């Protein structure tokens, strides 16, 4: 079995360290298939990312994923869940951090911690309309600057534009 798929005790230790540090802001955590998976309150996102980078050694941001939970809002009616995927090498260890953000709410930018979050956050802003505070250059990345609406939201039509063709 590849090393990446074995549950490792050091991951549980890392998870305990995180829970010890941020206590009630960690809403849930597990170690599955060689991966740390945690749900966090959005308020501690910035210090948590820094903790993962500086103290747990997760050196890079692999992906940033946004899901529109239009039908089943999470955590007190918040519309979007935002997932940060981190990895560390050597060692092939992954972490998954999930936070929830409501429509009109914002998240702290991850760019000061992980510079590669720059375009990923611009994409999330363009496609879902989530603002990231402290981002050096938050503009649309794919759609034109004067485009109206955020295409990957579930209430955006597959064809046409908001309010008809």
């Amino acid at each position, binding site marked *: 079995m*590849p090393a990446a798929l074995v549950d490792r005790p050091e991951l549980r230790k890392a998870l305990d360290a995180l829970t010890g540090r941020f206590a009630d802001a960690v809403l849930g955590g597990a170690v599955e298939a060689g991966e740390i998976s945690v749900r966090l309150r959005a308020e501690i996102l910035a210090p948590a990312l820094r903790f993962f980078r500086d103290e747990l050694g997760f050196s890079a941001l692999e992906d940033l994923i946004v*899901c529109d939970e239009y039908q089943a809002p999470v955590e007190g009616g918040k519309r979007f869940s935002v997932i940060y995927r981190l990895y560390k090498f050597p060692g*092939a260890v992954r972490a998954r951090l999930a936070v929830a953000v409501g429509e009109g709410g914002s998240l702290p930018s991850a760019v000061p911690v992980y510079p*590669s979050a720059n375009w990923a956050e611009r994409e999330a802003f363009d496609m879902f309309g989530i603002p990231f505070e402290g981002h050096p250059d938050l503009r649309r*990345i794919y759609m034109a600057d004067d485009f109206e609406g955020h295409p990957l939201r579930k209430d*955006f039509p*597959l064809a046409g534009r908001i309010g008809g063709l």
Partner: protein
Amino acid sequence: MAFREIDLNMGPQHPSTHGVLRLKLAVDNEVVLRVEPVLGYLHRGMEKLWESLTYTQVVPLTDRLDYLASLSNNLAYCLAVEKLAGIEVPKRAQYIRVVLAELQRLASHLAWTGFMANDIGAMSVLLYGFEAREDILDVFEEYCGARLTVHGIRIGGAVRDLDAPLIARIRTVLERIPKRLADIRALLDENRIWKERTVGIGRISAADAIDYGLTGPPLRASGVAWDMRRDIPYSSYGDFDFEVPLGANGDVYDRYLVRLEEICQSIRIVGQALDGLPDGDCAARVPRILRIPPGEAFHTIESPKGVLGFTIRSNGSDKPERVKMKSPSFINLQSLEHMCKGNLFSDVVGILGSLDIVLGEIDK
């Protein structure tokens, strides 16, 4: 001469961008101060479209992402769906997938070598690279009828089995590549013009490369050993013996050397996979309409461009709730400004080429 900053536009129609990419450059005489890539000219809303299709219908659309390595896209997507649905892929199908994915890597790297040399001004290498690539595309044509948008990998396995004549043909193609590779190396390795345009150009340190999230050959050229095939193996890659070539200087020349060495390693892997091809089925039995209980899966592979990943979320229906692609070209292009700063304007083309980007994948 007095300092005078000039803004320059490169693209969206420019032969060296291999697609429609616009670069907004700020230059002081010949020296690059800033580079800002402007994306979206090829944006087709793939991720939105996928939410309206069944899991199976998505597969041929992934061909249109990185259209120089369509099989790699098929593989990454199918592995993510299989992980989510808990589908077991037969061992033989896994080996066939490795053969196809490595042939695709050979085709992609050979095309890159040709394009890259052509961008720098060495026209003949393009012909050598493309001649070798043509053989591989012929194999794909014989395998499933298509050459570019191949759609050779399906959820649960591969389109069809590898029969004896096709295996013999693949072996002949593989035998011919080293000779052609030697021709290319004879033209470029010690070529003074090539070296002046590539050695020490577009450098990025290992630490910066990690910060910028670089993956694939550009990351390994900076000396970071990170290859999904070795570090988080999938599709039986753990069964094969191969090396992960590394560069030392993180410049354009090292990216060239890393890719050429990867070609040799891919030939080794295909040879081993064909030798050890196990008996069995070439695909698992998968229902025509696949319904997956609510869940989320993330799977990454080492595509020719870098680490390609898919996050798929299911909601119990036959269509995905959300598909997010982690596109290696998108992330690699982000570091272009860092690599270009302080270099000459004429080197932007070479640095951009050395990243091996495909706009179909960046713009989604």
